[in-house]
């Protein structure tokens, strides 16, 4: 029995020793591998760096490294670091080295990760000759690759690919469509004519494109956005109104005014905000009417818009005596939040009698509109506030 126990112990001890030796060897091998990679990377940093500094066209000599992931990563690192002529020179070198061809080949790989990194790399390299291949990747089976291809195309910035991006967006779910819209936004003005054309069609992501056009803010989209205001799609009308608020001209104002009578409150609210941004005096009577809208948001946005429009503040103050209590409340709430009421409290101490009277008029109107609490909190005498409430 004792012999058996000794044998087992010896066996176990042997196993522990073998495991320890294996672990040691594994660590040694992986450490050596890491050092080899670091040394190789370091060498590539020097080689490519020299190439950039010398502007040497002898980059064909580097073709033998084009398959090495470390080499590719170093070239991309320099690509990110540089701009202007240095970057263009490196791009030409990347072509000479066969690096671009390598990445293009990887686009056809069965390995998803290889395709992803190839698309990313081509986006960073930004070679205009790769546009057709990247457009092809917009049809990849993996949505992430399609989105990555869209970003790469945006980085290259060739407007001929915008139409393909819009077409590929149609096949996406909302999240991925938003990512493609982000890429279109990165294109900026170059993408506007094609996006404006898309807006006139029947594409399912027209609201998203209307929003993106508003963010880009190019006047060339105005006609399509105005047209979109009469769409049967409320989401599109809303986004188009917001876009025109950001980037429209006085030409958009009449259509936005009409939108204040839209059947959907979200659209009316957006139209009111947009009119505030357009700051056109003719909007004042329309916005004043909108203070009686059945929706709180519309009333609030109309009141806030009146603060921005020339002549709107007077209309807002006169609305404190509006026959509709909801209109009075909307006007009073915006006046209070604008800071004017606080200034009026200060002005009560003014040495100028006209300032004091104007302040008292405003406070009285606000108190009568149901905002006495504000002035009590601001420290006015309750009896004085009560007297103002009674003042006709």
């Amino acid at each position, binding site marked *: 029995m004792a012999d058996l126990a000794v044998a087992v112990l010896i066996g176990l001890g042997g196993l522990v020793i073998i495991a320890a030796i294996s672990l040691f060897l594994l660590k040694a091998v992986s450490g050596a591998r890491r050092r080899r990679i670091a040394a190789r990377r370091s060498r590539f940093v020097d080689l490519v*760096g020299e190439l950039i*500094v010398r502007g040497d066209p002898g980059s064909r000599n580097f073709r033998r490294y084009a398959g090495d992931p470390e080499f590719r990563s170093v070239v991309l690192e320099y690509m990110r670091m540089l701009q202007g*002529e240095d970057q263009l020179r490196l791009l030409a070198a990347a072509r000479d080295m066969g690096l671009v061809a390598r990445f293009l080949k990887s686009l056809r790989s069965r390995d998803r990760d290889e395709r992803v990194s190839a698309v990313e790399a081509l986006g960073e390299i930004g070679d205009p000759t790769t546009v057709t291949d990247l457009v092809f990747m917009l049809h990849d089976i993996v949505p992430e690759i399609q989105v990555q291809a869209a970003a790469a195309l945006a980085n290259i910035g060739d407007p001929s690919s915008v139409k393909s991006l819009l077409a590929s967006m149609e096949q996406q779910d909302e999240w991925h469509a938003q990512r493609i819209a982000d890429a279109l936004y990165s294109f900026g003005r170059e993408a506007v004519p094609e996006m404006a054309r898309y807006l006139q069609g029947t594409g399912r992501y027209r609201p998203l494109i209307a929003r993106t056009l508003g963010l880009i803010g190019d006047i060339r989209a105005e006609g399509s956005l105005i047209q979109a205001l009469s769409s049967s799609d409320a989401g599109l009308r809303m986004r188009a109104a917001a876009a025109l608020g950001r980037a429209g001209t006085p030409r958009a104002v009449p259509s936005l005014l009409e939108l204040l009578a839209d059947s959907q409150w979200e659209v009316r609210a957006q139209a009111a905000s947009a009119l505030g941004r357009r700051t056109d005096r003719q909007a004042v009577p329309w916005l004043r009417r909108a203070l009686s809208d059945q929706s709180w948001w519309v009333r609030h946005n109309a009141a806030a818009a009146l603060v921005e429009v020339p002549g709107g503040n007077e209309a807002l103050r006169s609305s404190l005596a509006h026959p509709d209590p909801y209109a009075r409340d909307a006007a009073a709430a915006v006046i209070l939040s604008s800071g004017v009421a606080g200034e009026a409290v200060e002005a009560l101490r003014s040495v100028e009698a006209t300032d004091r009277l104007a302040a008292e008029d405003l406070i009285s109107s606000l108190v009568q509109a149901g905002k006495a609490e504000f002035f009590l909190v601001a420290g006015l005498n309750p009896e004085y506030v009560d007297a103002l409430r009674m003042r006709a």
Partner: protein
Amino acid sequence: MNKPKILVVDDERAVAFLLTRALESAGCAVTALGDGLEAYERALAERFDVILIDHLLPGLLGQEVVQRWRQAGLATPVIIVSGVSNEEDIVRSLESGASDYVRKPFSVREIIARVKVQIRDRPQSG
């Protein structure tokens, strides 16, 4: 005539190498370091004509190093090279005592030109 002496401080080896080689090609003698604290001590111990320093260094931020140099009385022109390029950051860097600020990605020619401007405009001692 002595070569202008430049100190390059960047923990990214590729950036440090590129700036070093580019400045050497432009006729400068370059010392490259990757650590803010080491750079701080080296610049106080040895005279440099211009210092190029990365903003995001391990341990000590570029602008903190510059601030300490200025507090220690070092007047050498310092150019901060940074991938962080918001207005706030640029203003803070210049207020900390940096002479100039270059955004990454950069143009090698532009950096060399900026270094030459600092060498040309530096106050002559003696």
